[in-house]
């Protein structure tokens, strides 16, 4: 029987992770990584946010994408759950709604990897409009 994993194995994995992460970002700047926030309140959970978060973590682990995945509360888009907010480095955050597994896959392969927008964006702020007014 194989040995059950323990925190000692985590220590081993840490060194490996550290060398990989450090190569790419010497400046120690978390803003340089992709950040994904999954809305995880009652509304999100009930519509499958957990499965989506799980899927995204597995996919990004498999594809070795360096991203930080966290949970967040209800963003007020209960009608469009599950919702996720994706922030690419040096970009404004974008909120995607009605994220099922298919869309999650699209978001990873198109938006996170190539920067192409995909369907299902929820407009959360009107900064562009405000900026235009100021001009």
């Amino acid at each position, binding site marked *: 029987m194989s040995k059950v994993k323990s925190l000692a194995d*985590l220590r081993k994995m840490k060194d490996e*992770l*550290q060398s990989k992460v450090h190569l790419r970002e010497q400046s120690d700047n978390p803003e340089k990584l992709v950040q994904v926030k999954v809305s995880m309140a009652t509304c999100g*959970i009930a519509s499958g946010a957990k499965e989506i978060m799980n899927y995204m973590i597995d996919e990004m682990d498999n594809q070795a994408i360096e991203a930080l*995945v966290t949970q967040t*509360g209800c963003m*007020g888009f209960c009608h469009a759950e599950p919702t996720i907010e994706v922030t690419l480095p040096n970009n404004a955050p974008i909120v995607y709604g009605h994220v099922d597994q298919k869309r999650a896959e699209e978001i990873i392969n198109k938006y996170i990897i190539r920067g192409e927008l995909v369907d299902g964006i929820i407009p959360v702020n009107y900064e562009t409009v405000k900026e235009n007014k100021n001009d």
Partner: protein
Amino acid sequence: MKDLSMHITDIVQNSVRAKAKLVELIINETGDQLSFTFVDDGCGMDEETVKKVSDPFYTSRTTRKVGLGIPLFTQSAEQTGGELKISSTIGKGTTVEVRLGLNHIDRPPMGDLPSTVAMLITGNPETEMIFTYNKEEEKFVLDSREVKEILGDVDIRLPQVTSFLKEMIAENLKELNTTI
């Protein structure tokens, strides 16, 4: 809510919103009883609010008008002959205790507990978490502070860390031979 893991995520998220620094989740499996205890050191609630949270039309948030988390968990507990109790002190924190009939036919399945706990730990890096699973005399404990200490300056939010924790919890729970 399809399974108990979803309720767990929900209740822990309440603690996170209450700005808890430490959340303890204790699961007990003894005889025909399954119980969950959530202890947080968040902002707490006054007596009146504690009474109100079981009302589905009460919520402290402003983004929507309903708060279903507690009522849904209460329902899941009561339908198995159990109950949900909340005690809270302002400034000290909140304790939620849920008791369910383990072998009751209406008990929802546990769901994916390993990934739920792993994602709660890595998905809420500001909140520390102690997860304990007691099965009769044996137990498994995971403290997020230990995980962070080992990781050092490696970010806990990296997917690789979550995947590792998920596997580790799953293997350890299997060792405990949990019924669910």
